[in-house]
């Protein structure tokens, strides 16, 4: 590279300088050399004037000229002469230079006359380097003015400036003219050594002879330029700063732009004007999103607005207000006193009531019926004093066309009144309670969760030839007893469906009931107007025999049976053939007995004769073989009676009511209002607090006796008269059977917790019976232990449904 070589030469010459400090000749030589360089530059810049000229050519040229550099002494002398001239001349020289060096575009050179503005466009990065060189040259000229005495220093300064300028330039680092090749390292690393680093040829650069304090002091005294002398750490030489440098430092210290030539107030070139151009500056059109309002911002604003509204963030005013408020803090005892009205308006804004929309009457051309006739007009006029009583506040008028409608004279007034209304009438929000009808229906659990309950027909008990009105089971769930219209009572084995016994009686069997006392083997059979105490002789033979023994001898009592009872019922011993059939006692009543029921202990039983007037209910006692008539007055057509499972209560169902009597106190406890036409039968929950009442008018009523005298729930699940209803003794189940042949199994959970109402869930409808004479199911009875249910039907079969 020519340039490198050049630099090397420079450094080499400098070394020479160092070696022979006082020799001016050599200094001149040095100058010469410089001039040569400058000439080179000038020449090259000349050649650069032609922009098209290739760089290679230029290099070759410069090479050639480098070879000849020592010969160009004339030029150098000329230069020297110029140096002798004053500053004005220098400016001229500068001008010359700038003229000479075409493409010198740096402003620092043009600051003197500003004539180079037009040359900016010509400036060329490649050239700028040479230009710099030329400026260096110029600087060196300046230093020469300082006098011969400091030539060496000057020289060094020159080199330094060269170096510095190199740094300031665009050149890459490999072109840097660093004489010391140690690189950019802290120079104190060389403090220990005698040399400072290495030059291009790898030779040590020795430290200059150290000056002692005295020398330094003398120098300070002697040297007028001592203040501007600094030590170059790279070379260890002392360097005297030029005026330029000092000026530069001063400018920097004064916080001015270091470059003197920089025009701070240069005319403004407006690249982007406010004027709308025809062609866009940018090629591509505006993006779509710049036309769309930013959702993000909107959200942000919304958030802020809300926060402001809610008082989460405060404006400065509010903050100030708060701060001002904070100073003395007094709390209101009643918070409502000072609550801000604004918040109420925000939270509970009440919109103004809407005005009525105009109707037909308001039309300019109302239908004829809206137009007032004379009477109506008279009426309207009559209410002049109390216009608010008028149906319409105006008289409808008819016009041919809209054009003919005159201005409305009351417009302003009405507007004003409306404003008054809005302003003066306080508005309040009326809370309206909206309850969906669905929400009122309680959520019922799924039948799947309420298992077990009877679901499938499992067994049929076939044998009766006529409809079976009544069924009952024994306590262990082994046997089933049924009474039929074919005047027979049959005992069945439940598990196999085997009819074990058939007992022929004289009349239609209306009711059978197994004695709940497990130490008695007795069945009450209501057959016609007889009630038979029957020992079926199944199950425990010991119990059967004991029962026989107990009933063998009628106890003789002294109590005289009243005439009223005697005419009602007659106890008698069974005859021989009857005894063989199992009869143990026969009660002959004066009317037909429709129902019998046992008391829970199995000693007392009740019979019902609906036609018996005031003697329709009869209570008998097995152990004493006597009967009582509990009621003296007729209460109505008694349908059904029941004993309470634990308390001495008797439930008497007449046609429309259920009365509960306390047998101990002999008084009416409660009267249940069924609100139905005709009660058919009833059953009591084993707990004793809930009663199911079946009616002929298709309803099943659930009474919670603790709750009220009205039904807790009315189940309208059947299509026709309900004839049988039953609770399960163990499982929370109840069932009802009706004439529509359907048996409905329901879940009826009674909770021990008195606060919780019974849960009733209909579960299953079972329809297997055949209809006969419009009768379907007569009796429903649950298995005492298993979740199975028996139904007896008019078709002469009993069916067992199991889970």
């Amino acid at each position, binding site marked *: 590279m020519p340039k490198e070589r050049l630099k090397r030469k420079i450094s080499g010459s400098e070394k020479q300088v160092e070696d022979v400090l006082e020799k001016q000749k050599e200094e001149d030589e040095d100058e010469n050399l410089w001039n040569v360089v400058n000439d080179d530059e000038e020449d090259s810049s000349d050649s650069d004037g032609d922009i098209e000229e290739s760089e290679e050519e230029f290099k070759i040229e410069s090479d050639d000229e480098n070879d000849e550099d020592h010969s160009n002494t004339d030029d150098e002398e000329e230069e020297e002469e110029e140096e002798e001239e004053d500053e004005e001349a220098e400016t001229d020289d500068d001008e010359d230079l700038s003229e000479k060096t075409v493409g010198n575009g740096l402003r620092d050179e043009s600051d003197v006359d500003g004539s180079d503005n037009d040359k900016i466009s010509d400036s060329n990065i490649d050239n700028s380097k040479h230009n710099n060189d030329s400026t260096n040259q110029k600087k060196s000229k300046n230093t020469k003015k300082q006098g011969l005495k400091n030539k060496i220093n000057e020289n060094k300064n020159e080199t330094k400036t060269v170096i510095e300028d190199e740094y300031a330039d665009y050149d890459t680092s490999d072109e840097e003219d660093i004489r010391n090749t140690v690189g950019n390292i802290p120079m104190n690393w060389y403090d220990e050594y005698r040399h400072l680093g290495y030059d291009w040829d790898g030779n040590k650069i020795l430290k200059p002879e150290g000056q002692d304090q005295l020398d330094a002091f003398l120098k300070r005294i002697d040297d007028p330029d001592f203040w501007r002398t600094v030590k170059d750490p790279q070379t260890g030489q002392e360097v005297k700063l030029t005026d330029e440098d000092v000026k530069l430092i001063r400018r920097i210290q004064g916080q001015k732009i270091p470059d003197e030539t920089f025009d701070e107030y240069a005319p403004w070139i407006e690249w982007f004007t406010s004027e709308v151009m025809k062609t866009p500056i940018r090629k591509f059109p505006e993006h779509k999103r710049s036309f769309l309002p930013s959702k993000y911002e909107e959200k942000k604003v919304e958030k802020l607005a809300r926060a402001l509204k809610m008082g989460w963030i405060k404006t400065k005013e509010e903050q100030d207000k708060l701060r001002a408020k904070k100073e003395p803090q007094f709390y209101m005892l009643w918070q409502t006193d000072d609550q801000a009205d604004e918040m109420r308006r925000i939270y509970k804004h009440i919109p103004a009531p809407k005005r009525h929309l105009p109707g037909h009457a308001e039309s300019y051309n109302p239908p004829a019926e809206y137009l007032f006739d004379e009477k109506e007009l008279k009426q309207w006029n009559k209410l002049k004093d109390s216009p608010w009583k008028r149906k319409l506040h105006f008289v409808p008028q008819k016009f041919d066309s809209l054009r003919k409608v005159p201005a409305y004279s009351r417009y302003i007034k009405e507007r004003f009144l409306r404003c008054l209304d809005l302003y003066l009438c306080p508005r309040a929000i009326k809370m309206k309670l909206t309850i969906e009808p669905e929400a009122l229906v309680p959520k019922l659990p799924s039948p799947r969760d309420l298992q077990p309950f009877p679901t499938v027909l499992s067994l049929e008990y076939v044998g009766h030839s006529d409809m079976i009105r009544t069924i009952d089971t024994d306590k262990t*769930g082994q046997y089933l007893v049924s009474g039929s219209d074919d005047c027979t009572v049959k005992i069945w084995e439940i598990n*196999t*469906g085997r009819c074990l016994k058939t007992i022929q009686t004289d009349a239609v069997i209306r009711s059978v009931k197994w004695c709940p006392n497990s130490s008695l083997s007795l069945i009450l059979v209501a057959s016609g107007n007889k009630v038979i105490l029957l020992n079926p002789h199944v199950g425990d033979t010991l119990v059967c025999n004991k029962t026989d023994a107990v009933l063998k001898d009628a106890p003789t009592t002294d109590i005289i049976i009243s005439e009223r009872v005697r005419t009602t019922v007659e106890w008698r011993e069974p005859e021989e053939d009857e005894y063989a059939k199992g009869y143990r006692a026969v009660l002959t009543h004066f009317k037909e007995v429709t129902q019998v029921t046992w008391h829970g202990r199995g000693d007392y039983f009740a019979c019902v004769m609906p036609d018996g007037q005031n003697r329709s209910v009869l209570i008998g006692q097995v152990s004493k073989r006597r009967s009582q008539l509990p009621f003296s007055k007729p209460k109505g057509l008694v349908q059904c009676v029941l004993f309470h499972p634990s308390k001495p209560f008797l439930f008497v169902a007449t046609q429309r009511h259920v009365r509960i009597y306390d047998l101990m106190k002999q008084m009416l406890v409660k009267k249940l209002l069924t609100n139905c036409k005709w009660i058919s039968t009833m059953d009591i929950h084993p707990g004793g607090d809930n009663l199911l009442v079946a009616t002929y008018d298709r309803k099943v009523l659930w009474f919670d006796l603790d709750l009220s005298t009205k039904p807790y729930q009315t189940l309208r699940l059947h299509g026709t008269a309900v004839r049988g209803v039953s609770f399960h003794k163990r499982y929370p189940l109840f069932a009802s059977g009706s004439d529509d042949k359907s048996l409905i199994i329901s879940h009826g959970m009674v909770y021990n917790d008195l606060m919780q109402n019974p849960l009733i869930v209909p579960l299953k409808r079972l329809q297997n019976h055949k209809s006969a004479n419009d009768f379907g199911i007569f009796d429903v009875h649950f298995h005492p*232990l298993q979740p199975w249910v028996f139904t007896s039907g008019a078709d002469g079969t009993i069916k067992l449904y*199991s889970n």
Partner: protein
Amino acid sequence: MERMDQSAEAQLQVRFVTKQETYAVPDVPFSVPQNIDTSRLNKLLNELLRENAELLKPTEFDFLVLGQLLRVPLIEHLQEFNESIEATVEIEYVQRTPAPEPEDALLHDDWISGIQVADKWVLTGCYDQTINIWTTRGKHQVSAREHTNIVKAVCWLKQGDPSGGFVTVSHDLTGIIWKWEPSEEQPKPVTVLRGHERGIDAVGVSSNSERLATGGWDTYLKLWSASLDVEDCYEPFHKKIRGVQGKATIARTPLHTLKGHKESIVAIQWSESDTICTASMDHTLKLWDAELCGLRNEVVAEKAFLGASWSPLSRTIITCSADRHIRLYDPRSTEGSVCKTLFTSHTLWVSAVTWSQHNEHLFMSGSYDECVKLWDTRCPRAPLYDLSGHEGKVLCVDWSNPKHLVSGGTDNSVHIFKNRQFN
């Protein structure tokens, strides 16, 4: 054409294995169509067998895939178990259980409630209070009436040996131990078991024939000596009570009374020498220790039991309840459900079940739907065979003699089926 292609490309790798040496085939995988069914597998296997050994007559096989009998095309079977069809499927084949052959029907006067076979003698208990002994050929040998109420269950004292006597229980609250030699005309009641308070429904004799257990509606399980010797004096005492019909019979009192069931006991079987398995209407199966007279294990189910049978081969209990399902219980299992399998094919209550005495997988069941079914535990979805013939509810079944499957019901008849595996 397309269908053929499809079937041709859908192939499965199978390997045939068996535990029956006579029917062994080489252990090489075969490629079979995915939807191959039992009949085609049978054909294939018979071909293979003919190649290997000179088997003259083709044999019917059943195929076990993943422990269950193959009843549907192979691919469906695999899909049901979510089994990969990539791997080689191992098919175990067993000789198919031959269909039982109806042999005879024994007509009684009333419902048959209890039945058991020993050797060629069929002992039946009847609702007309009689007990009858028939030969399997249909010859009525003996009829005896000693009970005063319906006979509920009968049991030979010695398995397969009629001369060991038998026991019958009845709803007249007693059981009677009878002595009978096949040559005799009339069995002799040895002793009356008195102690139950209500009808007895079930009886079981221990495997060493020393003791028997009865249970019924009084919920108690009572253990008795099964000795035929009247003077056998390890019992506390004997009582002489006049029988109902005037015959002097010696009453025997129970050795032990085990309380625990809440409702009637419907089935009793001695599972091992000292364990009694009982099923009850109170939804429980209980295993009692006969030596210590205590409860050993209990299985609680959802439905009331109607019958149960314990198998000494598989050591599991098969039960029937008051529904249409048959359930297989493994009382030994501790984790998970003790109910292992559900067999559903009957349409009404299943009244009786009994295990096969020779095959750990086979059992038979009788139901109120007038059907007797033969089951394989490896095929829970469908029975192997339906043994039809009854015209009323089936109340009792028995398979004590592997050769004969017998059942009795409300059509007053006992149906005997011959098991062709043993002729």
